[in-house]
């Protein structure tokens, strides 16, 4: 299976490694220096040795202290800046990222590709193309840990969290749960299977035919009765959902929020929380009616509704 220690599967994992080992080197020098000085002083100034022990002028002591305080502060500032800038560059995923939904539950990972393919404890993904994981949990807090990509992100119930990556080395790597989640925590592991884009499309095509997520979402949208109000020609005054996803929405209390996964989820479960400006809070809550899986499908459906729909 997988036996490479600290394997890495992407270019930026390499740059984080370089940062890490640079820090290791600096720390090793500092540790060595401190040890040498401690041992050196201990031997030189051991009791009874004939080392010269002059009285240091008081002011010199003070200058030494200002000196090393400033030096450490600058060194730390530099490391902080280096680390933080590396991180902030990576926050926003590219627009064309392939989106994969992850649902964590005690004690397994359920994954759904946007074309409807589902898998458990395995994550197939193409190399060379940005991939975004949209994650939530059914029960407790878990943590998606992909060591070969040097990535980790907690997965929370009732919220969406995201990570994205561009991998560049096909292979099979660890996928683990890193946040203690109960009895079989250490067995909540799986495989990250990185494939070349060609292999990946071949793999996708070979999966049993499944309705894609959006399509299943559409069916739900009808059967749950959402379409009764939200259809463009409905008699009830409810917002048209075309083109909503990913755009700012004005709320009746003056706030403007971005219509992301969390917003759509809240709109379904807690409709009174964010009421769209110009509408009455008449939507019923679907709490207890829809499962996390179904919410994912509904979100995929809303996401698939493009602007064009609105112009009809």
């Amino acid at each position: 299976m997988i036996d490479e220690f600290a394997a890495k599967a992407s270019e930026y994992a390499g740059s984080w490694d370089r940062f890490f080992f640079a820090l290791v080197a600096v720390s090793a020098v500092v540790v060595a220096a401190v040890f040498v000085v401690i041992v050196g002083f201990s031997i030189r100034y051991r009791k009874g040795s004939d080392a010269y022990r002059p009285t240091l002028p008081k002011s010199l002591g003070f200058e030494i202290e200002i000196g090393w305080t400033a030096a450490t502060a600058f060194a730390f500032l530099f490391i902080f800046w280096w680390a933080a800038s590396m991180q902030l560059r990576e926050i926003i995923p590219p627009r064309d990222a392939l989106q994969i939904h992850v649902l964590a539950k005690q004690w397994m990972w359920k994954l759904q590709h946007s074309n409807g393919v589902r898998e458990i404890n395995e994550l197939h993904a193409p190399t060379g193309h940005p991939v975004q994981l949209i994650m939530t949990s059914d029960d407790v807090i878990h943590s998606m840990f992909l060591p070969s990509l040097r990535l980790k992100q907690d997965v929370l119930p009732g919220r969406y969290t995201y990570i994205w990556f561009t991998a560049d080395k096909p292979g099979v790597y660890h996928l683990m749960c890193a946040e203690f989640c109960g009895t079989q925590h250490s067995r909540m592991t799986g495989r990250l299977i990185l494939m070349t884009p060609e292999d990946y499309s071949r793999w996708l095509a070979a999966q049993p035919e499944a309705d894609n997520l959006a399509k299943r979402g559409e069916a739900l949208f009808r059967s749950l009765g959402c379409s009764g109000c939200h259809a463009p020609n409905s008699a009830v005054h409810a917002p048209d959902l075309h083109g909503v996803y990913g755009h700012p929405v004005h709320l009746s209390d003056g706030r403007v929020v971005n219509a992301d996964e969390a917003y759509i989820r809240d709109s379904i479960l807690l409709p009174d929380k964010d009421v769209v400006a110009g509408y009455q809070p008449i939507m019923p809550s679907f709490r207890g009616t829809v499962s996390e899986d179904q919410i994912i499908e509904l979100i995929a459906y809303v996401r698939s509704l493009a602007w064009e729909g609105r112009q009809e």
Partner: protein
Amino acid sequence: MSETAIESARDEEPGAVTASYLVAGHTLKSWLTTTDHKRIGILYALAITVFFFIGGIAIGLVRLELMNPKGAILSDEGYNRLFSLHGIVMVWFFLVPSIPATLGNFLLPLMIGARDVAFPRLNLISWYIYAVGAAFTCYAIVAGGVDTGWTFYTPYSSLYSNSNVLAAALGVFIVGFSSIATGVNFITTTHMLRAPGMTWSRLPLMVWALYATSIVMVLATPVLAMSLLLIIAERYFGLPLFNPSEGGDPLLFQHLFWFYSHPAVYIMVLPAMGVVSEVFACFARRRVFGYIMMVYAIMAIAIVGFLVWGHHMFVSGESQYANVVFSFLSFAVAVPSAIKVFNWTATLHRGQVTFEAPMLYALGFLGLFTIGGLTGLFLASIPIDVHVTDTYFVVAHFHYIMVGGSVSAFFAGLHFWWPKITGRLYSEAWARFAAIVMFLGFNTTFLPQFIMGYGGMPRRYHVYPQEFQVYHVISSVGALILLSAYLLPLIYLGWSLLYGTRAGDNPWDATGLEWQTSSPPPKENFEEIPVVNAGPYHYHPAEEAPDAARREPQEAQGRKP
């Protein structure tokens, strides 16, 4: 209670107080109803020793189990309960009370020239509160254990765990009050009961450290108590606090918890810094280099330590921009710690250094704390933390700080003040041997954990991928060495109690008021309350004029070279 404060500050007639505190009553009752801070310190010491070995046995089993990647001996449940037991007991019942409640209780009044703490009865009550809390936790253990880890993260602990969360959380909740009471007592004592002439700039660093620790205990512990109560409220009364499907917030607990528990690390480390400062000064026979700076550093660590809790939550789903702020503050709080390392090192310069056991333990502290501190910088750097948090890298890091640092310092202090506490000397050879074995065993145990952590070995894993086995095996062998090194002091210190030679009042030729009274001290500490006319660490009276401590920086600033 203020009456008591005044009472114990009042000089008593000399001569009435010469019998040692150990012989002032032999019955069990005389110990269990004592209000003597020295006896209370000893009661705590006995209690935490028991917990140290309970926690040690638990982790011994865990390490044995981890030699095999498939998990051969224990069940998943059993494993989870053992590491939770280890963490809960070691943190809440051993480390937090360790130095403050034992050495601190014993020494604080002695070091400032007082007859007792400000509220002696409150002090005794604190110990009983501790005992009641401990009883709850022991019950949780006996009744099958708890599997939440020492951090009690929600919603696992509040909704999903089917173990004894209530008893364990109540136990921790209750010991919290003991911490708070001790903190209040120490703060008041330091403010009110200093001997004539013992100005703030003449306080030994140990006293400064205990004072800062007490402030952290008083301010932070209530937050912990609150968060544990919230767990209990959700778990037993169904209040939807952390359950998101009822509108609760699963992360609320983590914020509250770390708001206490990050400062709690300083509750464990600041007193250690105090101990080590005393030991270095004595065995280098120098004044601690940069006394004033050391005091500022202690206070800075205590205060800024409140602002960095978010660095435990870089991958929790917090905003990346918040992460950057917490990262910055974490680097900021590391500066004073680094300064302290430099100052201790510089204290050796031009000294007359000797290597008695306390000094060996203190040198061990310095080395291990340096490594622990530097790896803290790794964790404060967000990209590295994202990869190594919740792996063995973190386990190694916090053991370097809490065990390599605090526990080494605890042993340094225990050996340093042992002759004062018991009036007896221990076997110097055995003590040095134990100190060295402890240092080697420690590194064998925890250095491999950094490596496997970076390799991607998650913590709290019962079964794990084959490739990490070799590191686990080395670590387990180290743990065996380490556990035996912890048993040694039990033997030779026990021996010293029975057969040790008499220590004399000041066997190390140390400065400090506690060495000016007899060993063991009389019940009332001093026959006559001493009068202080110089700063601490007067190892070179000729070189350092009285009160040099206080004037040093001002002079330096004023004098243009």
